[in-house]
C-alpha cells in the first residue's frame, strides 16, 4: 500500500510539490512557536524537494517521458520547468532547513511568517516555471514576488525600507508584465504557451512587444539594471534570511522564468532576433553594472547582491543565444549562482559581526567551515576552474564563439576578471589578514556553525560540482533540448 501511495505521489510530483510549498506555508504561518513553525516549513519543503528532485532525475537523467499536465490547473511540464522545479524546491529546502541562525534576530511571532513566506516564494516561482498560459504565469510571478517582499519586510532594521523599494520596483514590473502578457497573448493568438511551442505567431509585432515587456519586467525582479536599485537595499539590508529568500530563491526563480520566456520567444522565428537583442542589452548592462558595484561594495551581503546581478548578466547573455547550447549554459549558471549566493550569505551569517568585510578578517582560523563556504562562493564568482560556474561560462563562451558573438564571450571573461577582484578580496581577508580586536569581539558562536552546516555544505557541494559535472551537465542539456526541440 505504501509503495502504491509513493508511486501515486511520484506520478503527480510537480503539482504535489507546489501544493506542499503553499500548504506548508499556510501551516507554518498558523503554527504557534518559532521552532514548531520552522519544523513544519522544513518538513514541507523537504518533501517538495524530494519530489522535485526525483522528477528531474527521472525525466532529465533517466529519460522518462516529459508528458505531464495538471488536472484542473493550467500547468504543464517543459524542459526548463522540470529543471527549475528541482532547483527551486531543493534551494528552498536548504534555505529553510538552515534558517535558524539566519532567523536569530526575529521574534517568535515573526518566525512563522518568515518561514511561510520563504517557501511561498519558492512555490510561486515553481508555478511560474510550470505555467501553461500567460495569466497563470503572471499570477505565480506576482505571488512569488509579494512573498519575497514580505520576507524582506520582516528583516531587521532597514528591512522595511528595502521591502518598500522592492514593492515599488516589482509593482512597476507587474504592470509591464501584465501589459506584456496581454500583448503577447494577442500576438500569439492564444493565451496558451503551447501555441508558442508550435511556433505560431498571429501578429508578430504585438508578440515581439509583449515578449519584450515581459522580459523587461522579469529583469526588474531579477535585479538587472537600470532598475536594480532595490538589490542593494534588500539583499544588503534585509538581514541574512531576507537576503537568502530574495537573493537566492527570488533571483534564481526570476532567472529561470526569464530563461523560459526567452526560450519560448526563440521558438518563434518572427520575433526571436528582436528578443535576443533585448536580452543582449540587458545582459551586458547587468554584467557591467553588477561587476562595478560589487568591486566597490564594503558589505558582504551587498557584495553578494551585486555579484548576483553580474551572474544574471551572463545568464541573460546565454539565454539570448536562443540555442540548446546557450540554454544549457544559462541553466548551469543559474544552478551555480544559487550555490554561490547561498555560500556567501550563509558564510556571512557564520562569520557574525556587523556584515562589513572587516568581519571576515582572520575567519579561516576562527570558523573554518564558514570560511570554506565563503571561499567556494568567491571562487564561483571568479568562474575558477573546477567550479560549476566555470563549466557554465565555458559553455557560454563556446556557444557564443560558435555563432560569432565574440563580444558575448568577452563579457563572460570580463565578469570572471571582475570576480577575481571582488572574490579575491574576500579570500584575502579570510586567510591573509589578522582579526582586529573589534572582530574578535564578535567571535562566531559555535552553535551557529552547526545550525548553518546544511546550507554551508550544500552550497560548497553545488560550487564544486564542477569536479564531476556529468549529471548536472546532462540534466541541463536534456532540459534545453526538450525545451527547444521544435526550434526551426
Amino acid at each position, binding site marked *: 500500500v505504501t509503495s502504491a501511495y509513493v508511486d501515486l505521489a511520484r506520478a503527480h510530483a510537480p503539482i504535489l510539490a507546489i501544493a506542499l510549498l503553499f500548504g506548508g506555508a499556510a501551516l507554518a504561518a498558523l503554527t504557534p512557536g518559532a521552532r514548531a513553525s520552522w519544523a513544519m516549513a522544513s518538513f514541507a519543503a523537504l518533501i517538495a524537494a524530494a519530489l522535485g528532485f526525483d522528477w528531474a532525475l527521472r525525466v532529465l537523467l533517466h529519460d522518462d517521458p516529459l508528458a505531464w499536465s495538471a488536472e484542473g490547473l493550467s500547468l504543464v511540464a517543459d524542459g526548463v520547468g522540470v529543471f527549475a522545479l528541482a532547483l527551486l524546491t531543493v534551494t528552498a529546502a536548504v534555505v529553510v532547513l538552515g534558517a535558524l541562525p539566519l532567523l536569530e534576530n526575529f521574534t517568535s511571532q515573526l518566525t512563522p511568517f518568515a518561514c511561510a513566506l520563504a517557501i511561498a516564494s519558492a512555490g510561486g516561482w515553481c508555478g511560474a516555471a510550470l505555467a501553461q498560459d500567460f*495569466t497563470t504565469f503572471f499570477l505565480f510571478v506576482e505571488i512569488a514576488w509579494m512573498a519575497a517582499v514580505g520576507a524582506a519586510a520582516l528583516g531587521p532594521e532597514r528591512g522595511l525600507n528595502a521591502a518598500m523599494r522592492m514593492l515599488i520596483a516589482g509593482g512597476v514590473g507587474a504592470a509591464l508584465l501584465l501589459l506584456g502578457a496581454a500583448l503577447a497573448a494577442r500576438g500569439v493568438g492564444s493565451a496558451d504557451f503551447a501555441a508558442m511551442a508550435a511556433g505560431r505567431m498571429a501578429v508578430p509585432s504585438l508578440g515581439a512587444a509583449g515578449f519584450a515587456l515581459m522580459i523587461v519586467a522579469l529583469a526588474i525582479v531579477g535585479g538587472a539594471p537600470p532598475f536594480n536599485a532595490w538589490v542593494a537595499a534588500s539583499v544588503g539590508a534585509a538581514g541574512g534570511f531576507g537576503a537568502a529568500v530574495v537573493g537566492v530563491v527570488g533571483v534564481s526563480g526570476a532567472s529561470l522564468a526569464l530563461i523560459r520566456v526567452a526560450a519560448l520567444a526563440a521558438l518563434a522565428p518572427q520575433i526571436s532576433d528582436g528578443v535576443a537583442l533585448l536580452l543582449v542589452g540587458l545582459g551586458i548592462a547587468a554584467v557591467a553594472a553588477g561587476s562595478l558595484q560589487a568591486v566597490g561594495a564594503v558589505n558582504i551581503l551587498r557584495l553578494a547582491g551585486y555579484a548576483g546581478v553580474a551572474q544574471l548578466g551572463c545568464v541573460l547573455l546565454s539565454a539570448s543565444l536562443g540555442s540548446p547550447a546557450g540554454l544549457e549554459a544559462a541553466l548551469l549558471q543559474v544552478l551555480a549562482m544559487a550555490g554561490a549566493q547561498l555560500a556567501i550569505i550563509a558564510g556571512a551569517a557564520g562569520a557574525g559581526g556587523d556584515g562589513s568585510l572587516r568581519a571576515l578578517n582572520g575567519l579561516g582560523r576562527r570558523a573554518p567551515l564558514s570560511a570554506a563556504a565563503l571561499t567556494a562562493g568567491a571562487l564561483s564568482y571568479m568562474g575558477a576552474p573546477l567550479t560549476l560556474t566555470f563549466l557554465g561560462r565555458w559553455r557560454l563562451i563556446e556557444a557564443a564563439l560558435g555563432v560569432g558573438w565574440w563580444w558575448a564571450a568577452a563579457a563572460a571573461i570580463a565578469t570572471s576578471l571582475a570576480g577575481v577582484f571582488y572574490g579575491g578580496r574576500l579570500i584575502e581577508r579570510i586567510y591573509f589578514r589578522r582579526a582586529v580586536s573589534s572582530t574578535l569581539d564578535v567571535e562566531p558562536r559555535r552553535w551557529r556553525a552547526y545550525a548553518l552546516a546544511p546550507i554551508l555544505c550544500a552550497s560548497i557541494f553545488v560550487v564544486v560540482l564542477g569536479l564531476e559535472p556529468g549529471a548536472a551537465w546532462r540534466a541541463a542539456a536534456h532540459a534545453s533540448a526538450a525545451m527547444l526541440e521544435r526550434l526551426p
Partner: protein
Amino acid sequence: LTAALLAPALLVMTCGAAAAWAARHVVKRIAGLLAAMTGAALASAAIGAGEALPLAGVAVALAQTLMGVALAVRLHERYGVGEIPDIDEADARREPAEPDA
C-alpha cells in the same frame, strides 16, 4: 475603438509608473503603483487578451496596495516620516562604515 480605449489606459499606466518611481512620499508612490496597475489592467482588457488576465491584474493591484499601505504605516511608525529621502538618509546613518583594517 481599441485604440481609443488603449491610449488612455497606457497614459494612466505610464503616469502611475512614473509617480511610483519618482514621488518623494511613500503614499504617493503607492497611489502611483495602483494607477500603474489599473492602467495595465485596463490596457490588457482593451487589447482583448481574454477576461482572466485583466481580472488577475486587478487582484494583484489590490494585493500590492494593501501591502503598500501596511508598509507605509510601519515605516511611519519606525522612522516618524513618510518622505523617502528622509528614510534613506536615516538608513545611511545606520550603515556601518568600513575601516581601513
